[in-house]
């Protein structure tokens, strides 16, 4: 990095801005997809895929959280509503966790910026962690409450 020492702060900012500009088509594409998902996947559609079985619901909650996109706050509101509708806490926990840590929509961008192998490994680990954390959280709560 010795060559980079002579680059001024504004020069570095300019380089960083260009990096973001290069990524803009991908960012805009992801935003477009997020808009479509938020418009076409409704709360009712999400609730209809749960059946009350803990294993099934945890898995489906994780998958639904992966697909559903938006601000984390929305996942809490949706999760709370799903809980009120009788969806298990396993599913809701997995859903809320997967919402923030996993994302099908942003996979192409993650792979393009951080590499396919890294993306594959990270998402696989995050997927199993989400299931594990959800199950342990609810099991411990059942013992505690």
């Amino acid at each position: 990095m010795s060559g980079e020492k002579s680059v001024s702060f504004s020069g570095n900012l300019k380089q960083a801005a260009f990096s973001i500009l290069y990524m803009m088509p991908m960012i805009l594409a992801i935003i477009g997809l997020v808009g479509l998902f938020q418009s076409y996947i409704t709360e009712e559609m999400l609730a209809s895929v749960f059946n009350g079985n803990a294993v099934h619901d945890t898995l489906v909650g994780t998958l639904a959280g992966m697909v559903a996109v938006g601000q984390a706050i929305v996942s809490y509101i949706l999760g709370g509503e799903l809980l009120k509708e009788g969806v298990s806490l396993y599913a809701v926990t997995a859903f809320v966790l997967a919402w923030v840590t996993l994302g099908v929509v942003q996979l192409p961008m993650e792979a393009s910026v951080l590499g396919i192998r890294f993306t594959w490994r990270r998402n696989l680990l995050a997927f199993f962690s989400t299931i594990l954390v959800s199950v342990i959280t609810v099991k411990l709560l059942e013992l505690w409450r």
Partner: protein
Amino acid sequence: MSGKQRRSRWMGVRLLALVLLLYAGLALAGSPGVLPALHKALEILKTLLPILAVVVIISGGINYFLKPKALAKHLGEESGLRGWMIALGAGVLSHGPMYAWYPVIAELRRHGMRDGLVAAFFYARAIKVPLLPMMVAYFGLDFTVLLTLLTLLAAWGQGVIMDILPARQEELP
């Protein structure tokens, strides 16, 4: 522009074209969800622009202030406990969507940040400090405390596993 950046840009252009075609197709088919989708996308873009400005400043700052030796010390192979604390803390405190942080993380990786710390950073982002009161209100204090602690533990565990896996061979940005 490096070869990796060029490939990444073209992949983005192709995906953007595909998404635009999807919007156009749905609009031509008279689907009522297209306009709300477009409206939502514009809202997201409006929210994201200031975050991207912050990302530019952080990325520029990383290149200007942090030297490879210092970065290796804090986030590299020998960063130890300090590295974990920085990655988990930064994950918990970072705002905005995950993809907004890819450029910063790519920059840090280029300077030697371990993949384990990257994985820990991303998973720790599940903890949203400003939203904790809301989580308590919806799911209870015991649920919130337990989920927060287990999420941090899982973030660290993922990082450890990631570091154990064979070193990456893929090209870096």
